[in-house]
C-alpha cells in the first residue's frame, strides 16, 4: 500500500478517485479511459504544483518517507543483485543498522556500506531505526579497510536519524567509534563516495561520511542536529521544527551552496519514492562516472585532496 505525507494528501484524493473509476469500469464494463486519462493529467499537475516549491521541512519529511528506497534497495538495484553481504565487526556483534558488502557495479567490484532502516514495524526494530551502535561503525571500518587492501572503491549510503544514544553504545565507545571512522576514512587510499540518500543526522552520518565526493539526493537532509531536536533546544518545544529546518540550512541546495557537499543528484518530480527506478539509474550513473574519474588520480594525491577539501570547510572572520 502506498503511504502519503500530509502535504501529499491532494495526490491521495486523486489516486482514490482513479481507483474508484477503475472499479466502476470493471464492474459495469463502461469505458472510462477518457476520465482516467484526465485524472492522471490532473494528478501529474498536482504533483508538479506540490513539488515545485517544497519547504525545507517538507524535504525532511520526504527524506523519511516510508516508501523511500533504503540502502539495500539501492545496493540491490545498482548491482542487479550481484552483491555479497558481509557481517560483523569481529569484536562484539553484527549491527543490523549498518549493512555492507561487495557488489559489482558495471562489471567492477565496489564496497558498499550504509545505514539500513526497516520497512515495517518489526523490521524497523530489527534495524534499530537505522541508528547504529559502535559495532556498526566498527563493522563499516572493517569493510573500508578490506576494500583498501584489495584496491576496491568504496560507496557509502547515508540514511540515519543519528547514532544510537543507548547505555551500551556509550559503554562501548560510540564517540570513539565515530571519531575513528572519520579519521580513518580521511586516510583511505581508495576512492570514497558518500551518498546521502535520506537522513543525514550529525555524527552518526559523518561516521560514514568522509569521502572524495559527498553527494546528496535532492530531497535528503544533512545537518548537525534534526529539526525536532534543534527546536527543542532553542525553543523548548517540538513545535518550531519548521523554523528549525529553515534555520539549519540542511537541504541539498543549501549544503551545496555552503560547499559542504560536492554535488546534488536530482530526484524526479514526485520524489524518489514515486520513481524508484529513475533514482536508482541516476545514482548508478553518478557513481560509475565519478569512480572512474577518481580512480585516475594518484592515490596519495587523491587522499591529500580529500584532506584539503575538509580543511577548507568553515567560515570565520579576523586573523
Amino acid at each position, binding site marked *: 500500500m502506498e503511504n502519503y505525507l500530509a502535504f501529499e494528501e491532494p495526490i491521495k484524493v486523486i489516486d482514490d478517485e482513479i481507483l474508484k473509476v477503475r472499479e466502476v469500469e470493471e464492474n459495469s464494463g463502461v469505458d472510462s479511459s477518457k476520465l482516467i486519462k484526465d485524472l492522471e493529467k490532473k494528478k501529474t499537475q498536482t504533483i508538479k504544483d506540490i513539488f515545485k516549491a517544497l519547504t525545507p521541512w517538507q524535504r525532511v519529511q520526504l527524506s523519511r518517507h516510508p516508501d523511500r528506497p533504503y540502502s539495500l534497495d539501492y545496493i540491490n538495484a545498482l548491482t542487479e543483485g550481484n552483491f555479497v553481504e558481509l557481517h560483523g565487526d569481529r569484536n562484539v556483534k553484527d549491527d543490523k543498522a549498518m549493512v555492507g558488502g561487495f557488489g559489482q557495479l558495471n562489471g567492477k567490484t565496489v564496497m558498499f556500506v550504509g545505514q539500513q532502516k526497516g520497512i515495517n514495524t518489526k523490521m524497523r526494530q530489527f534495524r534499530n531505526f537505522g541508528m547504529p551502535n559502535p559495532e556498526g561503525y566498527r563493522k563499516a571500518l572493517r569493510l573500508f579497510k578490506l576494500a583498501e587492501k584489495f584496491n576496491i572503491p568504496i560507496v557509502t549510503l547515508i540514511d540515519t536519524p543519528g*547514532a*544510537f*544514544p*543507548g*547505555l551500551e*553504545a*556509550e*559503554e*562501548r*565507545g*560510540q*564517540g*570513539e567509534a*565515530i*571519531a*575513528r571512522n*572519520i*579519521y580513518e576514512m*580521511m*586516510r583511505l587510499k581508495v576512492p570514497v563516495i558518500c551518498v546521502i540518500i535520506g537522513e543525514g543526522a*550529525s*555524527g552518526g552520518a*559523518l*561516521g560514514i*561520511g*568522509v569521502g572524495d565526493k559527498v553527494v546528496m539526493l535532492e530531497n535528503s537532509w*544533512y*545537518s*548537525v*542536529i534534526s529539526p525536532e531536536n*534543534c527546536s527543542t*533546544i*532553542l*525553543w523548548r518545544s517540538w513545535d518550531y521544527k519548521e523554523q528549525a529546518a529553515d*534555520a*539549519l*540550512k*540542511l537541504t541539498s541546495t*543549501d*549544503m551545496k551552496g*555552503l560547499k*559542504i557537499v560536492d554535488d546534488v543528484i536530482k530526484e524526479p518530480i514526485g520524489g524518489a519514492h514515486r520513481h524508484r527506478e529513475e533514482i536508482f539509474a541516476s545514482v548508478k550513473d553518478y557513481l560509475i562516472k565519478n569512480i572512474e574519474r577518481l580512480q585516475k588520480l594518484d592515490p596519495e594525491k587523491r587522499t591529500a585532496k*580529500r*584532506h*584539503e577539501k*575538509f*580543511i577548507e*570547510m*568553515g*567560515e*570565520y*572572520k*579576523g*586573523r
Partner: protein
Amino acid sequence: MVWFKRSKDGITTSTADKKETPEGLWYKCPTCKTVISRDDHAENLYVCATCNHHERLSSDEYFAILFDEDKYTEIAKGLYSADPLKFNDTKPYPARVKATQEKTGLKDAIKVAHGKVNGETLVVAAMDFKFIGGSLGSVMGEKIARGIDKAIALKSPFMIISKSGGARMMEAGLSLMQMAKVSAKLSQLSDAKLPYISFLTDPTTGGVTASFAMLGDINISEPNALIAFAGPRIVKETIGRDLPKGFQKAEFVLEHGFLDFIVERKDLKEKIGQSLVMFKG
C-alpha cells in the same frame, strides 16, 4: 592553608559567577559545600581539598598551570565568528556572539598557545566552556588547525584540552564539518610523526567526543569528568530507567578502555612533562 566550614548568606556565591566576582572572597564547593578562601582555592589549583572536586577551569588557567613560568605565546588570537547561515533563533547569531564576547572577554570558545612544559615545547589548544558551552564551530576548527600547523612548524607535540557540549548548533552543517576538518589536520600531524595528547575535561560531550577528543595518541582526563557522546539525559530518556552510578564519568570511561589515565590537577604538569619525554624515545 586555613580551613574552616561556614555557610552563611553572602558567601554562598553560585558556581556560575564565582571566579568573575572580584569581591567574592570565598569559594563554596558545589559538591561537599565546604567553604574556603578564594586565595587558598586558587593555590589548590581550584580543587576542593575536602572532596577533590575539580572546578572547571578556563583556557588561561590551564595555560598558567602547564607552561613554565606562565610564559606562552597565543596564536590566531583575532579569529571570530562569521554568520554563514544567518542563523536567528531568539537572537541573531552575531548578536549572541557579541554579547558572549562582552560577558566573557573571550573571542570564542578556544585559545591556542605555545610555550614550554618542563622545558619541552608544546602547542596547547584549550577550550572555554563559558563561551556558548565550549561549542565547536568554524573558529574553533580553524584555531585548532592553525595550532596543528604551528606544532608541525615547531616539530612539537600537540595537546587539546577539551571542555565542550559539542558542535555549535548555530553553524549547523559547518560545525559538523569541523569534526572532519580537525581529523584531517590530526592526520597531517600524525604523518609528521608528532604526538597528540587529548585531555578530556569536564564536560566533554557530543561532536567533540565523536571526533578529535577520542583520537589522542594518549587520551587522558581529570577525576570525575563527564565524558560522553550522548549526554546522560538523552541516554536516560532512551533506555527509560535511571543510569548506573558513575556512568560516563572519567573513571567509568577509563574502565571501559577509552582513556589511558586520569590525572589529578596537582600532577597535571608533571604527568604531561613526563609523557612528552617518553614520546621522544
